[in-house]
C-alpha cells in the first residue's frame, strides 16, 4: 500500500475568528480545549481566538514548552477529559501542535504508549472526536499538515527525540491566517521561509518523492522566491505574507509524505550545537547540499527541473545550476552564505564539526537523500560552509 496523507480541510483566505465561528456551527462544536504556550497566550490574536469560541465551553492549556516531553500527552488528555472536548485547537508552532496530537492520542487510547505508535498500525482516532484544528503561528515547520509527532524523553541524562508517524495524526482542519505570522520579526520571517523552501527542495529530490509531493514542492519554491523579498521590503503586505504562510503548509504536506535530505540531517545537529535557528541552519546548508548531491544523475535531473521551472515562472536569467539561483537569492535578501557571516567563531565550529558529521549519519532525514555521504565527505562539506 502506498499512500499520502494530508489534512481534510484547509481554510486560508479569511480571518481565523470568522472561520472558527462558522466551524462551531457547521460541526456543532460544544466543548473544546485550546493548546498553546504562555507567550502566544499573551498575544492579541489569541484573545481574538478565545472571543470567537466564547459560545462554547472551553479551557486553555498553556503549559507547552519547546521540545515537549513524552508525558505532555497525559497532561493534555486529562484536560480533554475534564472538558469532554469535541475539538482540540492547537495554536502555535511544532511543539504546540505535537503536544495537541499527543493529548488526543492519550485521550482516546490511554493504554497506548506514544513511543509504540507505528506508521501502519491503526491508533483508533479516525472518525472519532476530539478532532484537531491546527492554527500555525509561524510560516515554517509545516507540522500543521504532517502526520509526524516529535516528543522528547530523558535517558541517561540525555534528551532523546522520539519521533513517530501515523496518518491518523494529521490535523483534521488547518486554519491559515496571515495576520498571525505578520508579527514575526525579520530574522524569524527569513528563517521560517528558508525552512519551507528547504523542505520543498529536499522533498522534490528525495528518493521517496512522488507526483503529489513534487507538484506541491515546485509551487512552494516559486512562492518563497517570489514573496519573501516583498515581505522583507514591506512587512505589512498581507497578500505576500499569506502566500508564504500557504507555502509553509504546502511544504509540510510535501515533505511529510516524501522525506527530507542532507540539509536537514546536518542542520539538526549543527543548529543544536551552535544555537542557530533551525531555518537559518538548513537554509545556509542548502546550496552546499545541492552541489554535493549534483553528482547523482537522478538528483541532477530533478534540480535542473526546479531550475528550469523557476527561470520560466520568475523570468530569471538562465544559470548552470540551481544552487546559483539560491545563492543569488540569498544575496538579494541579505542572508549570509557562510557561517562566518553569522558571528560564529571558527574554533567553536571546529570543535563541533566531527560530532555534527557523526550525528548527521544517524539522522532519519538522511535516509532519502539522493547521495549517501561518507564521514569524510561530510566533514569536508562542513569545512566549506565556514
Amino acid at each position, binding site marked *: *500500500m*502506498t499512500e499520502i496523507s494530508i489534512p481534510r480541510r484547509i481554510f486560508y483566505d479569511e480571518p481565523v475568528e470568522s472561520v472558527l465561528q462558522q466551524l462551531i456551527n457547521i460541526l456543532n462544536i460544544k466543548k473544546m480545549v485550546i493548546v498553546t504556550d504562555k507567550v502566544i497566550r499573551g498575544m492579541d490574536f489569541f484573545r481574538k481566538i478565545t472571543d470567537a469560541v466564547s459560545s462554547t465551553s472551553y479551557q486553555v492549556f498553556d503549559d507547552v514548552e519547546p521540545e515537549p516531553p513524552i508525558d505532555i500527552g497525559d497532561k493534555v488528555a486529562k484536560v480533554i477529559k475534564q472538558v469532554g472536548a469535541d475539538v482540540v485547537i492547537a495554536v502555535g508552532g511544532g511543539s504546540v501542535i505535537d503536544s495537541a496530537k499527543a493529548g488526543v492520542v492519550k485521550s482516546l487510547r490511554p493504554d497506548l504508549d506514544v513511543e509504540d505508535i507505528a506508521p501502519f498500525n491503526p491508533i483508533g482516532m479516525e472518525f472519532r472526536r476530539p478532532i484537531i484544528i491546527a492554527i500555525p503561528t509561524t510560516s515554517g515547520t509545516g507540522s500543521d499538515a504532517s502526520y509526524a509527532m516529535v516528543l522528547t524523553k530523558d535517558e541517561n541524562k540525555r534528551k532523546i527525540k522520539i519521533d*513517530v*508517524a501515523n496518518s491518523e495524526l494529521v490535523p483534521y482542519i488547518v486554519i491559515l491566517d496571515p495576520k498571525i505570522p505578520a508579527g514575526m520579526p525579520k530574522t524569524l520571517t527569513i528563517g521560517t521561509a528558508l525552512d519551507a523552501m528547504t523542505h520543498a527542495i529536499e522533498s522534490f529530490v528525495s*528518493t521517496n518523492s512522488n507526483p503529489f509531493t513534487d507538484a506541491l514542492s515546485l509551487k512552494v519554491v516559486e512562492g518563497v522566491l517570489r514573496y519573501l523579498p516583498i515581505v522583507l521590503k514591506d512587512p505589512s503586505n498581507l497578500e505576500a505574507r499569506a502566500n508564504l504562510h500557504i507555502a509553509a503548509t504546502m511544504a509540510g504536506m510535501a515533505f511529510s509524505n516524501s522525506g527530507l535530505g542532507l540539509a536537514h540531517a546536518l542542520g539538526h545537529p549543527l543548529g543544536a550545537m551552535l544555537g542557530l535557528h533551525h531555518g537559518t541552519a538548513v537554509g545556509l546548508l542548502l546550496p552546499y547540499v545541492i552541489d554535493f548531491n549534483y553528482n547523482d544523475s537522478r538528483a541532477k535531473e530533478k534540480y535542473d527541473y526546479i531550475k528550469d521551472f523557476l527561470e520560466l515562472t520568475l523570468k530569471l536569467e538562465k544559470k548552470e545550476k540551481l544552487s546559483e539561483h539560491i545563492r543569488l537569492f540569498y544575496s538579494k535578501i541579505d542572508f549570509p552564505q557562510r557561517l562566518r557571516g553569522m558571528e560564529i567563531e571558527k574554533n567553536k565550529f571546529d570543535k563541533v564539526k566531527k560530532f555534527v558529521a557523526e550525528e548527521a549519519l544517524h539522522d*532519519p532525514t538522511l*535516509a*532519502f537523500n539522493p547521495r549517501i555521504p561518507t564521514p569524510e565527505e561530510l566533514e569536508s562539506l562542513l569545512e566549506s560552509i565556514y
Partner: protein
Amino acid sequence: MPKFPSKEWAEKFCEELNKSETYRNSARGWIWPILFKVKDLPKELKSQFSSGSPGFLVDLNNGTCRGVKWFDDSSKADAPFVLTATFDDWLNVIQGKINPVSAIVRRKLALEKGSVSSIMRYPVAALEMVRAAQRVGLK
C-alpha cells in the same frame, strides 16, 4: 554463486557484511537480529519449500554479523525485527531498483516487527546491506 533465498546465500551475505568497513562503522549501535521472510515464491522454488515462506535470521550486533539461521518455514522463527516481502520485491530491493528504506515506508517490505524509526536512524547501514547483497549476487 548461491541462489536466493538459501542457507548458503544467507551465509555469504553475512560474510560480505563482515568484510565491509562501511557496514562496521555505520551499524555501530544496531544490536538487533533481523528475520528476513520471503513469500510468493516462483514456481521452481515453490516445490522446494512446502511452507511457501522460507526465511533466514541474520544476527547483527554493533556492525558485525554474528551468524545466520535458516528456516524452511519462517513462520516458526522470530526476531526483534521481521521483514517480509514477495520474492519479486526482494529482488527489486537487492538489484537497487528501490531504496530499502523507501520500500519499508511504502510497505513493499512489510515490517512485521520492530520500529520504523529505529531503522530510519541507520540509513547508511541499510544501503550498505543492499550493497553487500549485491556482492553476493543473485541467481
